[in-house]
């Protein structure tokens, strides 16, 4: 009777999930928008844009230094100065409406970004896009060494024949997405999206999973509960005490993998405020922060992988970039050392109170919005750590809007915040130290350097690193950056960002692991497509 009901074949909604993979994100409700260029679209926030639209290549955040895996482009070549990109488009890809995918579509996509500033979310300085048969050449106004991965792996290629008819691609919700990926949109509701496998025309072997069911949960709690009950099989969410809350519910299958990437979290110090303009003081503070506590208590032992290297670069992803001088140098809590350092620098520990050179007690306000409970917990830990060297810290919890504004205008003592992430350490160091991003106190600094760190040396090194044409020059610049970062401690790094996820092997296996980190583990990254392509039914 209900044959034409969209739910007619959903009797198995709660039955064994042999055919589908349930992916969840704690994003609140979503509305139907599949515009792959817009971060706010459901397709982006849940990540399913990457199974409908594909990038030129696959870049693995976990191994950022590795070259991209060819995807829509069968060949990717950068000029040594990273100003010219040559790609060859594979000739067996088709759009889900059956049309062939050609280099023209790639040219269209790059031109679209170039012309529509609103869609140019990476602010790419595209100069020219030219086509020669299946080859496309894109030239840039400046070196793209630090952002090549975005161009290759984070720009979805869209079909020209559809998109050129769209009046305003920037504000169109693209309700009927046509892409080159292995899945097409089957149904949409504010809670969940179902994608089904393209049974023909995909340029590779089709994936094993017939249906992808994306669900947007209201918040972390709901998402975690869904993971624990098995309603959700894959997600990226902060789970406090994931062992008890998630893994223990099905220790055989419930797993978490959270590799670090080149993007970190740390305590930005306002270097314009006395006495924190003194690098020695910052260094001393850096020495007492108990990163292990933060990792275990605040980040549940997995979420922000513990930073070990004093350069602030995470293990794994950062290994390739740690320069000679700091290889093997790791953080350790050293209260005595810090005290000694302070004493030498003219500070006095008066009982439990640290007095600065002018005899004033050193106090510091740590601030982060209340809802970020892991940050809050971290701050509580930092607070007790700082007390060890006599610094009286208080934790403030302004609301997010106020906090944002304070951070940007430099109205803070210290905040825990993230850095940009990328394929090189450049983004991390730039966010913290770039003198070009520095704004006077009171003027919003939107891109970075919130602590108003002033180091011409670092600024120059950042420029040199981004524009270098050979690895030697890059290494030199990087060494300078790391030296400044370690010695001046403009920001006290506490943890790495991760591209991990919680997943279940009950129905599907083949997930990336430490042993085989072939792709990032986060369902919203473009690498998710790679993961899905790897998944196989669990033999039960």
């Amino acid at each position, binding site marked *: 009777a209900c044959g034409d009901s969209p739910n007619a074949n959903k009797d198995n909604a709660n039955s064994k999930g042999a055919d589908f993979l349930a992916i969840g994100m704690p994003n609140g409700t979503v509305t139907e928008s599949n515009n792959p260029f817009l971060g706010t679209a459901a397709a982006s926030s849940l990540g399913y844009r990457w199974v409908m639209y594909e990038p030129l290549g696959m870049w693995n955040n976990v191994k950022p230094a590795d070259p991209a895996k060819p995807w829509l482009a069968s060949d990717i070549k950068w000029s040594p100065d990273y100003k010219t990109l040559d790609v060859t488009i594979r000739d067996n890809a088709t759009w889900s409406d059956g049309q062939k995918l050609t280099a023209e579509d790639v040219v269209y996509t790059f031109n679209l970004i170039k012309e529509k500033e609103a869609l140019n979310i990476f602010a790419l300085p595209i100069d020219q896009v030219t086509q020669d048969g299946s080859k496309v050449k894109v030239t840039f106004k400046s070196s793209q060494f630090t952002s090549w991965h975005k161009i290759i792996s984070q720009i979805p290629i869209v079909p020209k024949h559809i998109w050129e008819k769209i009046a305003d691609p920037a504000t169109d919700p693209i309700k009927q997405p046509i892409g080159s990926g292995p899945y097409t949109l089957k149904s949409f509701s504010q809670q969940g999206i179902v994608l089904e496998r393209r049974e023909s025309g995909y340029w590779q072997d089709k994936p094993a999973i017939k249906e992808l069911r994306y669900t947007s949960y209201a918040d972390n709690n709901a998402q*975690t509960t869904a993971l624990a009950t098995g309603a959700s099989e894959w997600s990226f969410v902060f789970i406090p005490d994931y062992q008890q809350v998630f893994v223990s519910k099905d220790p055989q299958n419930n797993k978490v993998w959270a590799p670090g990437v080149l993007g970190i979290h740390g305590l930005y110090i306002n270097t314009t405020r006395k006495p924190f303009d003194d690098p020695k003081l910052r260094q001393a503070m850096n020495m007492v922060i108990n990163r292990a506590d933060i990792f275990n208590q605040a980040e549940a032992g997995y979420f922000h992988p513990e930073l070990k290297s004093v350069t602030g670069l995470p293990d794994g992803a950062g290994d390739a970039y740690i320069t000679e001088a700091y290889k093997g140098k790791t953080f350790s809590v050293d209260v005595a050392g810090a005290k000694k350092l302070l004493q030498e620098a003219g500070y006095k520990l008066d009982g439990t109170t640290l007095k600065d050179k002018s005899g004033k007690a050193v106090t510091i306000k740590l601030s982060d919005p209340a809802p970020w*409970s892991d940050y809050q917990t971290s701050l509580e830990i930092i607070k007790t750590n700082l007390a060890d060297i006599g610094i009286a810290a208080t*934790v403030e919890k302004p*609301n997010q809007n106020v906090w944002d504004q304070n951070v940007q205008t430099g109205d803070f003592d210290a905040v825990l915040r993230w850095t940009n992430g990328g394929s090189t350490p450049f983004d991390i160091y730039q966010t913290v130290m770039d003198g070009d991003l520095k704004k006077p106190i009171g003027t919003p600094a939107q891109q970075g350097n919130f602590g108003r760190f002033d180091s011409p040396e670092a600024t120059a090194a950042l420029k040199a690193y981004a524009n270098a044409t050979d690895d030697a020059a890059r290494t030199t610049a990087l060494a300078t950056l790391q030296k400044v970062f370690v010695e001046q401690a403009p920001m006290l790094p506490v943890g790495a960002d991760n591209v991990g996820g919680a997943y279940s092997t009950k129905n599907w296996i083949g997930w990336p692991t430490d042993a085989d980190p072939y792709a990032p583990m986060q369902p919203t990254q473009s690498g998710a497509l790679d993961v899905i392509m790897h998944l196989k039914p669990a033999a039960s």
Partner: protein
Amino acid sequence: MTIPTSSIEQVIPGQGSMAQPEATKKAKKQRFRFVSNRKAATGLIILGIYVLFAIIGPWVAPYDPSARSNDLLQPPSGDHWLGTTHLGQDVFSQLLEGTRSVIFVGFFAGTVATVLSVLIGVTAGYLGGKTDEGLSALSNVFLVIPALPLIIIITSTLENAEDWLIAMVIGLTSWSWNARVLRAQTLSLRRRDFVDAARATGEKTWRVIMFELMPNLTAVIASGFVGTVIFAVLSEITLAFIGVASADTWNWGTILFWAQGQQALAREAWWWFIPAGLAIALLGTALSLINFGIDEFVSPRLRSVGKTKIKTASGNTVRMRIGFTPVLSQGATPVATPVIRKETVQ
């Protein structure tokens, strides 16, 4: 939103029940009758305990509520009566410390809202005319705007959401219902003779309002106050729970916020989540009881009849109810001439 539990018409003390001349000795007792109301007394006692803890809580708390320890997420024990949080903080101390903020915000917001509602409601009701129209329109606008979302928005504009600021916001946005009730009440009082009598005696307008009307509005004002306190407490806790208002002070909402953020229940740390909620519920109950007390004080009809079940002479138990007066004993045989009375001297 507080739902009025008594209708507006009958909130004037000294009316209705007392319309008949009563014994003079009873007069003094009158003053204490409110307290002798069982509901009110229970409510007041519980509230008193809360207020006491609000004052001494931070001093008697066994631990610094923010202090971390190594007992992470421990269930209740002799050391930690209500267990610890994921950072090893003592939940019981947090609860004690949090009482102050809750009570403070509740009472401060209640005061602000009450003052506003009295100013606006009584003025509108007494002066009437254009003033009334303007002020009524104002309170209607505030009545229409949903308070909680508004409070959330305003609170999120605040630099640092300290307790008194939050209380201020709650107070400023939640006076309208009381103002409306007070206006209606004032209107009905204004028609009563003693107001005209005071005017005819030559009293100035402000004196009429302050000394003739206001004392008669005490019960209404008090119940409005208590209602706003309930609302303010719940709002503050809600704000803290969803992480909007977030000063550094502890309140029960903050405890719940942390507990929920750390998924206390999923981690079976019930001691972290349950007590704060119960504390709220108990405080709310106490305040509601006080309000019932006021209602009953003001409208004697609501007072529960001392004893509602009585025994008749034949041993049956009957319930007192309207329409069927209980008969305790019937003279079995008609008494033709009543000669001897059971009672002679009293």
